[in-house]
């Protein structure tokens, strides 16, 4: 078991004929993901990495039976690509693209909410269930199959955490990159619910960062609905207010979204805190030990 993706997930890539889309499609194939095709408007009939390219997502779905898509479409067209995937009834839409205008996402999110699709991202590394299915840009080899659910707003910070877990002998059930934008399709809470209900996930490690209140909301949710051990790290304790720290969503504005407020909420919910980024894996181990 795992969440979101497994060895049966059939994946297409929107933007497969682009340099980045092709590169990561090959990376996913190498990892063992069941890539079944791709979409680029106007390039239907071509092949990339021996996979058929279609003009539309609907055609790709009809021909391949895909149930997940990985989006590498450039920012000006990415919101439309998400809407197309949702309209075609693709169950899992993973948007890797960075730089989508926030109001485009404000238009997309209500449509996703009223559909049967789940959106992960945008501006995220993707989703991976180790040894089964990788949808995204993360280096596959650092992951090991196991029972820790990992979720994060940041890419390389997730790699760091996964690496620490793997070295401590803790494999991962599924790792989910939520994305670094202000408006994303899935929140910590959405994924917490899935991890809580997944029998194969025994503990949860989350990496948050400054900006917004998603971590505070997650803390509240953990307090009432999560029985599994949870550990957390928050990036940006030293970030100055009013400055965007790389991610569009990583900004302390109006005194809101500070690391301190998030840490306080997480501690209050009984979540084990990693004080240092070098301590993320160890914090998860402490969270597990506290329960036994």
């Amino acid at each position: 078991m795992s969440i979101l993706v497994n060895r049966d997930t059939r994946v297409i890539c929107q933007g497969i004929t682009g340099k980045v889309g092709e590169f990561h499609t090959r990376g996913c194939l190498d990892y063992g993901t069941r890539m079944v095709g791709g979409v680029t408007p106007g390039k239907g009939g071509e092949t990339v990495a021996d996979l058929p390219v279609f003009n539309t997502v609907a055609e790709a779905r009809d021909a391949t039976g895909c149930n997940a898509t990985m989006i590498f479409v450039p920012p000006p067209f990415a919101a439309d690509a998400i809407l197309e995937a949702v309209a075609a009834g693709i169950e899992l839409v993973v948007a890797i693209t960075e730089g989508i205008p926030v109001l485009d996402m404000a238009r997309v999110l209500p449509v996703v909410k009223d559909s049967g699709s789940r959106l992960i991202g945008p501006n995220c590394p993707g989703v991976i269930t180790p040894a089964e299915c990788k949808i995204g840009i993360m280096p596959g080899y650092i992951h090991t199959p196991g029972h820790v659910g990992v979720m994060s707003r940041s890419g390389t910070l997730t790699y760091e955490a996964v690496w620490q877990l793997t070295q401590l002998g803790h494999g991962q059930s599924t790792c989910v990159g939520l994305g670094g934008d202000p408006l994303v399709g899935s929140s910590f809470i959405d994924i917490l619910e899935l991890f809580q209900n997944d029998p194969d996930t025994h503990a949860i490690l989350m990496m948050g960062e400054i900006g917004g209140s998603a971590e505070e909301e997650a803390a509240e949710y953990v307090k009432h609905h999560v029985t599994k051990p949870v550990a957390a790290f928050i990036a940006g304790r030293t970030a100055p207010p009013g400055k965007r720290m790389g991610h569009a969503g990583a900004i302390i504005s109006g005194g809101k979204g500070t690391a301190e407020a998030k840490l306080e909420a997480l501690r209050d919910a009984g979540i084990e805190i990693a004080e240092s980024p070098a301590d993320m894996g160890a914090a998860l181990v402490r969270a597990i030990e506290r329960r036994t």
Partner: protein
Amino acid sequence: MKIHEYQAKDLLRAAGVPVLAGKVARTPDEAAAAFTALGTPVCAVKAQIHAGGRGKGKVKGSEQRGVELAKTADDAKRIATGLLNNTLVTIQTGPEGQVVRQVFVESGCAIDRELYCAILVDRAAGSPVLIASTAGGMDIEEVAAKTPELILAEPFDPDRGLAPYQTRLLASKLNLPTAAWRHADTFFRKLCQAFVNLDASLLEINPLVLTKDGTLVALDAKMTFDDNALFRHKDITALRDEAEEEPAETRAAAAGLSYVKLDGTIGCLVNGAGLAMSTMDLVKLHGGEPANFLDVGGGADVNQVTEAFRIILSDKNVKAILVNIFGGIMRCTTIANALVEASKTVGFTVPLVVRLEGTEVEQGKKILAESGTSIITADGLTDAAKKVVAASKA
């Protein structure tokens, strides 16, 4: 991206939002001429910098405030002289302040009440939201903390905008006279349209003024734009005032790097925003102070990494540099080669601590070891932080 008040008001005027007549001036004589041309009994002379708190802020070494009223052209000239090319310190500029390069001379109006209004994208609601309060002209964060019941919030769909019932609700709760409701409806809806059409990320009107004749006027306007949407707003991009920005940050952006200058002594070069923030935190945790946030991104090449080092080294406070790379898509060998190349072309004047992990890490370390460059290698995050803090204090 931020713009000046006078630019925001030009945009609002064009969008049909009521603002007062005004002229921008770059010399004291221009300010005097602007006063005469506006032809009103009173004008406000307002410093134009990319920071708020101007009314209470003062010019360094004088009692000149950032916003003052002028009753004559000579007044306007005197105030402009006090402001132009001087450094204004406000609660938002920090103690170093910001140089005033232009002033905005704006006609006065008969104020009945001062209100507050802002539009931003609310993450929890997943939509833009209009926020209003009767507590105008005050620090809204303080109002929100002490008297949250005074803050009104109406979320709206970007394409549909505010519904008439929402503007009635706002007008009623803001205690606007019923005769002003229709006007308020137009004002709020046009403001929301402007926010959406211009892809703003923040539009703050503080104060929003109810005039004695029952109309709403945007007395101040602070506008920030979504950088991700600038590709479809060439006209707004043209309003950028690079003189207001940190030069190193502008330079970094041009090279496709994400850089934020800080006050510490340890330069940081990292891949990924979350890891870059965490690296700053790590430095602080071990007794150092980060000099910057710098994310070279996932696919940086030798040229970008070299430029990143140049930018870090241009900060004279930097006493040591920490390179923290978790190779994923970015290979450690790429970074190692870039480091060697950069050390030849840039020449490191301060100690360099390097921590590499991930894809092709062994080959990367080998490249560094064989290059003969004086690099302090570290195993793991904690080791790296300890070494760089020690090096910065040596």
